[in-house]
Structure formats: structure tokens, C-alpha cells
């Protein structure tokens, strides 16, 4: 099933200009990287995708399930996992407790949430730190807690907002490995403004700026846009070319 944004308009206040205006996008299963400068509307888009934000107009749906319908809302939220830009510790809780609590909030029963949390922590390589308080973990480890929270309830749509921002190169490499190991057959969207996050593990690339698409295509098509003899990595060159060309 695809995640769809149908004619979605969103503004943060009645008098504010729309961040997204009659925006439509259909995302098939697979890994998609959402690139764009700061303020492009990436976090807003993911917020709408997770139902943390409600469209002013239009609707978001996964298959026939849409959060716009009150009776579908819980089911939709259960289907969607979100890793926000900043995963924070719930003071006093251990890694296992925090992930289990997040899974419980997504509708799992207490026992089910507890065992799902253990599995999710194993998936992200934190099972040996399950008993440690989250507040004592490093930034990279807390990100992995965020990833575990998202995985614990077996979501079909995984939306990750700037998952590698602020991580050192080693942690980013580790995180990329984790993303490569994410379950197949699900809709995965990773938003980032760092083009060096781009790798062959993504099936498609989307560049968003000011609420509009500037590019959609495969990673290969994207990299082919890099001008010959450009300085820096091909991904950076292609990105600069697209953004500069559009502006």
C-alpha cells in the first residue's frame, strides 16, 4: 500500500502563508530520501504524515485509512511510526521502559509492548543498554532509542525526521547500517538536509523546497544530474545544481 498526500494544504496560523499548498504525493513501499534546505517543509510534511499535524485542506491516507476520519485515526496512527527530529529521554525511565511506554501508547498491550520493546532494542543494537536510564545515554544512542520506539509497534509506514542531524561520522555510518536493515516492504521516508546521507540504500530521491517538488527520481537519475568536473561529491553537486537551477 502507498502513503498518499491528496491536495494537502497546510498553514501554521490562519494569517500565515501556506507551507504546503495543494500538495499531492504518492509514496510507494521502499526507502525514499526527502532532501531540502532548512524551512523547505520537510518536517511539516512528515508531521502531516504522522497525524501530529492536521491538513488545513486535503487529506493524508495509507490505503483506505485516513486520520481525517475520526474512526480511522487510531488505526492510522498505529500504522505509522515517527522518529521526530529530537528524541528525548523521559526522565527516570530506562531504555527498555521508554520504548515499551511508546509502544503501549501506540496501542500495544502491556506485555506485548514490553516484549516488542526488547526486540526493537535488539534491532537497533541497544539490548545491552536496556536497563540504563535514557538520560545517561549518548546522543547517538538516544537516536537509536527513537528508532526503536518507531519499530516497536510494527508500523507499516516509517517516517524519520533528520535522523542523523548532529551525529558524528561514525554514528552516522552506524545509523545508515540500521536504516539498511529496516524491514522490507514498508514505506520509509527519511528527511534530511545533508546530501551525504544519500546512498544506494534508497530507492528514490525527492527534493522539496518551499513546499514544492524540485526533483523526483531514482538515486542514479539524481546523481547523473551532477555537472561534469564539479567540485565535491556528486550528490552535493547534483543537489546544488537542482536547487540553483530552480531558483
Amino acid at each position, binding site marked *: 500500500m502507498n502513503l498518499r498526500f491528496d491536495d494537502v494544504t497546510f498553514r501554521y496560523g490562519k494569517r500565515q502563508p501556506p507551507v504546503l499548498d495543494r500538495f499531492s504525493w504518492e509514496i510507494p513501499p521502499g526507502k525514499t530520501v526527502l532532501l531540502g534546505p532548512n524551512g523547505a517543509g520537510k518536517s511539516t510534511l512528515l508531521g502531516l504524515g504522522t497525524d501530529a499535524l492536521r491538513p488545513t485542506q486535503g487529506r493524508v491516507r495509507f490505503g483506505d485509512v485516513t486520520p481525517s476520519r475520526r474512526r480511522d485515526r*487510531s488505526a492510522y*496512527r498505529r500504522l505509522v511510526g515517527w522518529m521526530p527530529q529530537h528524541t528525548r*529521554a*523521559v526522565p527516570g525511565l530506562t531504555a527498555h521502559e521508554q520504548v515499551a511506554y511508546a509502544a503501549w*501508547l501506540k496501542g500495544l498491550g*502491556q506485555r506485548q509492548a514490553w516484549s516488542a520493546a526488547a526486540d526493537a532494542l535488539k534491532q537497533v543494537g541497544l539490548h545491552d543498554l536496556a536497563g540504563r536510564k535514557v538520560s545517561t545515554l549518548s546522543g547517538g544512542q538516544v537516536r537509536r532509542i527513537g528508532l526503536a520506539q518507531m519499530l516497536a509497534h510494527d508500523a507499516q509506514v516509517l517516517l524519520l525526521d533528520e535522523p542523523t542531524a548532529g551525529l558524528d561520522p561514525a554514528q552516522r555510518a552506524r545509523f545508515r547500517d540500521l536504516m539498511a536493515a529496516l524491514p522490507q516492504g514498508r514505506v520509509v521516508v527519511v528527511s534530511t538536509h545533508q546530501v551525504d546521507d544519500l546512498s544506494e540504500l534508497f530507492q528514490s530521491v525527492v527534493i522539496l523546497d518551499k513546499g514544492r517538488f524540485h526533483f523526483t527520481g531514482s538515486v542514479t537519475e539524481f546523481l547523473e544530474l551532477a555537472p561534469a568536473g564539479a567540485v565535491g561529491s556528486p550528490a552535493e553537486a547534483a543537489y546544488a545544481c537542482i536547487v540553483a537551477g530552480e531558483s
Partner: protein
Amino acid sequence: MILRKFFRRSAAVWLSPIILFLIVFFANDSLRPASTIYSLAFTVTGASEVFLIAPFCAACAAWEGGRLRRAGWLRLPRTRTVFGFVLLPLAPTLVVGIVSLIVAVLYQFRLAPAFLVPNFTVMAVACAVIIAHTVLGFAVGLHIRSVIAMPSILLLDYIWMVMPPAFNPLWLRHLTGAWTGCRDVTTSLDTRASLAVTLLSLGFAVAAFLLARASLAERHFGAAMIPIILSVSVGIWLVHSLGPDPVVPRAGSLVCSNGTPQVCVWPEHRNQLARIEPLAAQADAAWQQAGVPGPERYSELRAAALPPGVGSIRLQPSLPQDNRDILVSLAYGALPRPPACAVAGTAPWPGGAAAPYVAVWYADVAGVPLSALQSAVSPDVIEKVAAVRATPPADQANWVNQNMAAISDCAIPPHLEPPS
């Protein structure tokens, strides 16, 4: 399983020894224990410690709310309802609060001379107060830094619970749910007071619900004040006509003796009947011999609720009473009810002054020596009644009947001087 973990991390659980110590300390230091075998009296005395428990729970809940605020989870899309969302972090605090209430009440019931079941209404209302203050504290903690929210909630909630009983008008105190005055076996709790506090608790809970859904910038924040204002207004409307204690005459059946005069008491005093009955018979015989028959029936109903010709008997405030206390109670109970003009205050009631004289005469005739009454009435009363008792029986009966008539009619003056 997760719930168990929350219990281990809960501020309320960790701090529970403090509240339990305060409950016991306050009960021993400041609470006047109930002195009658009456479940309502013991329950309200114990439940009055809600003024300590509710602020404690509200402050702990503010801390729990602060934990979720710091984690930024308020905004996360979740499948659980807002009730489910707050249930896990709040459950330990609520359990500590309700257990503290039960401890406070049972600590009072340990003084009861017989097995009594706590009053369900008072317990339910006290639980509602604790739950409402807890969820409101939690909701405030979701929006304000814990270091500010926790002490502020503790202080403001404590003020809300202890200040109204210190202020005029006296009915303000009924809004807090701490009804220490409902101790008389002849009365029961006025439904208006319990309804007012339940509504107030509901208002607090709705406000908490709106706050939990709101961000500070949203209109919900202002809307959260509406249920509080509404519930306080309705609560004031309900209790403003009540007196210093939110009580009504107790309804229900009394237990009666078969003798003459018949004595009817509340079921809690059933085991006193065997002692009262012969004393009532002894007093009645003495009064008949003196030419002034007493009532044919005594009842423990509130005096205002008694039909004409029925004497009142009071077995309070302390139990067990000695025989003299019971005879004095029968003597006062033999007096007629004040007339309507005296109750309404529409006319002077000079006969009221005769009441202690006639009662002391009845008591003396029934077998309580005047010397035993010296500490309870003025020397003038003792002196005049002693002089009356020295006159012939017919004169005494005439003196009593004249003054009894004065007590029951505003227009008849008393004749306190001994017959010459």
C-alpha cells in the same frame, strides 16, 4: 508490567512515607477524634486529612507531568486516548493518594468501640477530590517546568484546601470536602455539600483534560478555566444556604425499648438501651410522685424533629456516660420545645430563662443531687431550685407547671422565685 515499572519510578511512591507520617502526626496532634459510635463521625474525621493528601498528590502529579513535558511526548501522535495517556504515569500517584485516604480513615476507626463500616459517600467524595487535584496537577506539570510547577501546585492547592475553613462565610469550607463538623449521631451529611464537592472535582478534571490537550498558545488554555469557574459557581449556589456544618437531620429508623417511658435511640446506641430504660423509669416514677409527669416517650431524634409530647435524649458528646449524665439528659429532654416565635425570633421569649431552673428541678427529683450540678449551672439556679425543693410538693408542682407553660409560650412570663 510497564505499570509496575512506573510504580518503581513514581515520585508519589518514593515520597509516600512522608505523607503517611504527616497523616498520623496530624491525626495525633490536631484532629479531635470522633466521640460517638457513629460511622459518619469517624469517616469525616479521617477524610478531613484530604487537605494534606490532595496537595501532595497534585504536586507529585505535576512532577510526573513534567517528565512527559521534558520528553516532548505531549504532542506525539498516539493511539491511546488522553485518559490512557495519563493513566500509566498517574496510576501510582492515584494509588498512593487513595491508600493514604484509607490509612487516614482507618486510623480514626481504630478508636471506634465497635466495628463500623466507613461512610461510602464521604469516602467516594474524598476520592473524587484526590483524583481531581491529581489530574489537574498533572496537566499543569505538562505545561510548566517541574521546578516551578511542583512547589507552586503544592502551595496553591494547600491554600485552596485550608483557607476556606478559616474564612467567613462559613459555608465556604463545605467546598473543600473536609467536613469535620459532621459528628452528631442525629445528623447526616447534606447531599448539597457532597454534590458541590463532586461537581467541583468534575470541573477540575475537565479543566485538566482541556489543559492536557492544549498548548499554552491555544484557546484550550483559556477554555480550561471555564469548567472551574462553572463548577465553583454551581458549588457555591448549592452550599451557600448551609450553616457551619453541612448537615441535615438524620433519616432512618430508631431502635425502641418496650418499657414505660419508651426510649428510642439510633442503632449505634442500641446497647445503651438496657442502661437507659431503668433510669428513665426511675426518673418518670419520681416525677409522677412529685405531681409532674414526664414524657411518655423519649427519642434521640433531633429536638427540632420531635413531635409534641416526645422528650429528647442526648447521648453525646462522650460515651460511655455515667448514670447522672443520662438522668440530666432525661431532665432536659422533659422540657417542652421552644415555641415557634422563639425559633423564628419574631417575639421576645422570656420563658426561655426558666429552662435551666426547671431542668435542674427535674434532675434533682430524678436523683441527681444539686451538688453534682454545681459545675454545670449557675449558683443562682442551684440556690433557687434548692429553695423550691424545700417547699411542699403541691407548690413545687405548681411552680414547675407555671414555668413549663412559660417555656412553651412567648406570651407567658416565667416565675422563677420560689413559692412563698
